[in-house]
């Protein structure tokens, strides 16, 4: 079997069943963009529990998973509904222990970025200029410091983060998992290299020749990828640069629904448990949704790599 014939393509059900188990440390990353709700909803439907959920910005996706009872612990740096307000389900868990207490491990953004980077680089720690004068190290004893051996003081460090699985949404990949991303890059690459297993979820599966035509665009190489899931619109209601816009109505609706336990449950019943898969979820959207969320066109200028024969 040659590379061109190799395939890691799987369905979402199959991929989540294979790579997400009770008790796992899971990172579904994507900063504002490319947040793979399709994977999260499938994990919820499969009834996973006791997960340690890692994400810089837990966002709606982990608010929903916490509400669904999937999580034992949250590792994060910013708990917000971006541009809208609070994450009510997580707040209920942290403030009142409802539905169950939620352990938290809290960093700043650069701290989380550094944790993934140290994990990906197999370093014992990542040094960063932060935390001095802040109460964060008291709240989280894993934030420590080391003395510079060059006599110029000490610097904060954070430990590596190596999730059992990272689930990353991207614009396109080949069947072997070489994934190309554009727009916000977040920590997708670092999370992929840090994780023991990687599932890449894409808007389009393309020929290997497309990937090879622009190798600088490949942030996640097949080397670290276990499964490729083709799930167009899988990041809705977040957005995918060049493919669709954020569906803010959903962010506002969750803000409303999630303020109340019963309504939260009703929302999950309708949009997660009440659908069989992503295709059924997408069918529930208003018929004009994709017209309203259309990205429009703004193409990158050409780039020639040359043929060197």
């Amino acid at each position, binding site marked *: 079997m040659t590379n061109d014939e190799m395939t890691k393509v799987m369905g979402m059900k199959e991929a989540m069943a294979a790579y997400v188990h009770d008790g796992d440390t899971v990172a579904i990353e994507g900063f504002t963009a490319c947040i793979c709700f399709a994977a999260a909803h499938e994990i919820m439907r499969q009834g996973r529990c006791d997960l340690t959920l890692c994400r810089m910005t837990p966002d709606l996706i982990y608010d929903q998973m916490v509400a669904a009872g999937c999580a034992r612990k949250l590792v994060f*740096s910013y*708990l917000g509904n971006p541009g809208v307000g609070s994450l009510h389900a997580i707040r209920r868990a942290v403030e009142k222990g409802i539905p169950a207490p939620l352990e938290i491990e809290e960093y700043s953004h650069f701290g989380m970025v550094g944790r993934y980077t140290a994990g990906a680089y197999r370093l014992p720690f990542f040094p960063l200029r932060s935390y001095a004068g802040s109460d964060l190290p008291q709240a989280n004893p894993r934030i420590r410091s080391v003395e510079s051996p060059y006599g110029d003081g000490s610097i904060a460090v954070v430990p590596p983060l190596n999730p059992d699985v990272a689930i990353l949404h991207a614009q396109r990949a080949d069947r072997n998992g070489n994934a190309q991303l554009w727009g916000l890059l*977040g920590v997708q690459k670092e999370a992929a290299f840090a994780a023991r297993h990687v599932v890449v979820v894409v808007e389009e599966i393309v020929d290997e020749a497309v990937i090879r035509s622009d190798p600088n665009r490949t942030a996640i190489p097949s080397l670290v990828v276990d499964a490729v899931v083709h799930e167009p619109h899988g990041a809705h209601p977040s957005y995918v640069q060049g493919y669709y816009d954020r569906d803010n109505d959903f962010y506002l609706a969750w803000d409303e629904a999630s303020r109340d336990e019963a309504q939260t449950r009703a929302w999950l019943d309708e949009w997660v448990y009440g659908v069989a898969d992503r295709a059924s979820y997408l069918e529930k959207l208003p018929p004009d949704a994709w017209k309203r969320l259309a990205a429009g066109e703004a193409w990158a200028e050409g780039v020639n790599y040359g043929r060197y024969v």
Partner: protein
Amino acid sequence: MAATYSASEMMIVTAARALAGVRTVFVGVGLPNVACNLARRTVAPDLELIYESGVYGARPARLPLSIGDPTLVSGALSVCSMVDLFGLYLQGGRIEVAFLGGAQIDRFGNMNTTVIGGYDRPKVRLPGSGGACEIATNAQQVFIVMRLGRRSFVERLDFVTSPGHLGGGAERAALGLPGGGPQVVVTDKCVMGFDPASREMTVVSLHPGVTWEAVQAEVGWDLRAAADVQETPPPGTDELRLLREELDPGGMYTQ
């Protein structure tokens, strides 16, 4: 004839004007986002907007819903990974001004965006640091925009998320923080600076029609005034037009 305007509009316009001549600003979520976009259209045409999402030189074609809005990406000068944004741009010392909002602030400009109440079982769980801790640490200067209020301007923070001038005086420099810390706080009623020696917040101008007492009533400590308290210049019609018609036509931030 003077235009009528809301206190929020006054605050945003004043915040924007604080950026006159600045070339690089790190833009926080919410109010700072509007103020920085207004500054670029008025007092700081060469201003390049930098977002923690990885964007340098954004040219948003609409009011961004968040600091990660796709309109910030399309047409930007550069979009990089977050390790590069925080490492190269911010920690590298390349940011002239970071414009932040906040939940709680004390007289030395230390800020809390983590919890109200105790950390382990908080009364209110706030969003947390995001990038604020390292932004407050590394930006050359920090500008703050937030509404006055006794629950926000407090004698003592429940939690220090982001370091300002710590206990005041030379404490910040002594701890080796690379950036200069908070320089200005723009509110809906006044503008405050920081005393060069004590580093305590001091009122430098009151917005038109606002009394000293009205400001003090919203602040949880005995406020100090600069030697010569001015009246903040009111918004111009052009600034108000941009704000109302182009930057925030929905009135999300300006009501």
